[in-house]
């Protein structure tokens, strides 16, 4: 099965990191990504720029409406994702638990819909 691992973290807290901590943080992500590429689980994944750069789009009565900011204001923000292949939820959870920010933020594990029949 395929699972999308959505990486939520508190952006304001993350921005306060001193530079040397930032370097080891990025290194931890690089190591993790290499690991799941090597294991064959990796299907894709990217980091996102902060929610301050987000634009929300809605079309109402044929008119395109733009709002500055994310869809919902939350304490933790979506900061990136991995798409992984895993045999079942337990395996996907084991991968999610190794994402470096799982220690302070939240990883939401969402199965990719399979269209049956």
């Amino acid at each position, binding site marked *: *099965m395929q*699972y999308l691992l959505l990486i939520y973290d508190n952006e304001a807290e993350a921005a306060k990191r001193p530079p040397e901590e930032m370097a080891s943080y990025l290194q931890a992500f690089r190591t993790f990504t290499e690991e799941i590429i090597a294991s064959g689980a990796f299907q894709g994944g990217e980091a996102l720029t902060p929610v301050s750069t987000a634009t929300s789009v809605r079309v109402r009565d044929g008119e395109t409406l733009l709002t500055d900011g994310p869809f919902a204001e939350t304490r933790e923000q979506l900061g990136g994702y991995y798409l992984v292949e*895993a*045999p*079942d*939820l*337990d395996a*996907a*959870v084991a991968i999610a638990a190794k994402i470096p920010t799982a220690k302070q933020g939240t990883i939401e*594990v969402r*199965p990719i*819909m399979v269209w*049956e*029949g």
Partner: protein
Amino acid sequence: MSPWAELVRAEHGRLVAALARTTGGDLQLAEDALQEAVLAALQQWGDAPPDQPVGWLLRTARNKAIDVLRRRGTWARKARLVAAATPAVDAPDLHDDGIADERLRLICTCCHPALSLSARVALTLKVVSGRTSDEVARLFLVDRATMQQRIVRAKQKIRLAGIPYEVPGPDALPERLAGIRHVIYLVFTEGWGATAGERLVRGELCDEALRLGQLLVEQVPDDGELHGLLSLMWLTDARRATRVDAQGLPVLLADQDRSRWDARSLALGAAALGAALRRGPPGPYTLQAAVASVHARAPHADDTAWGEVVALYELLLQAAPSPVVRLNHAAALGQHRGPEVGLAALDALADDRALGRTHLLPAARARYLEDLGRTEEAVDALQQALCRVGNAPERAWLEAQVARLLGQVSTARA
């Protein structure tokens, strides 16, 4: 219920466990296929069920499940998963006692931590114990539509999120077993001290929890805490007949007629406690069972070895501190060393937020205040408990205590 309807209920968990292998963990499909097989049996068996009725049901249900999987076009994918486990479709009649017992796999799936606790409880009773959604709804005093939705959603999540139909490996099994024990104990405690409703004890839930505990002990005989849990449930359940009086009001442990404690349950509880203690250092359930066994050994409440109870609660405070353990420890301390010590220990818990919401703390205080002759304060504490109590029998009991104490006050003044 006809004799073979009882058979189907009794074998429900074992049948669904075997069928879920064929369906690759799809519990809804497993249950639907079993239901169809039961309907087919109703039409075909008449008064003469086949020699191996359980094997017949399994074979028929399995064929129906495979038909559905073929129609869905998912058979090829699932077939790879189950090829090793499933005999050929046209296997000869299965012998009833030759069906591998895979209920541990089923329980592990129903109690997966990715499901909410309420869903785990509902699913276990529905799928493993073979209760209908209506029955589960009634047992938990939830309306039928809510319970049906809860169960359907949980089954759907198992299928769509890929919750594995597996017993976890040795690394993850202890944690999963801890979760399963919790679900079983939750079923028991809901039956024993119903949090809501008109009756204090709902014995069907206690029976079901004991059955589940027994089943699990058979499947994982090396887990000490599982024996401890079973012991705790047996030793507690032994007092069922004396827990409430003829009016349905609760009777305190000290006032129960111990000659009416169920001898068979006490013996089973003692044996399970022995089995738990032989399997390593005692965990929280085993320690609670040990407390229950101290009570069981005392022919009369006055003979209780309170020193032992206090010592066991001190071990429990280290192993698994919880508000209720702190409360019980304080109450036992009062029994052991006198009401003043007990009251001081209870008052030290006044700031506990969890206890602040229950009626237990003021009710326990009332008892020691009364012992100390501080009757009016005892009445105040009981009134406070009344504001927080959830079920009708306990409310009535507290009201009776208030009336009794007020009677004493007016007698004293007269």
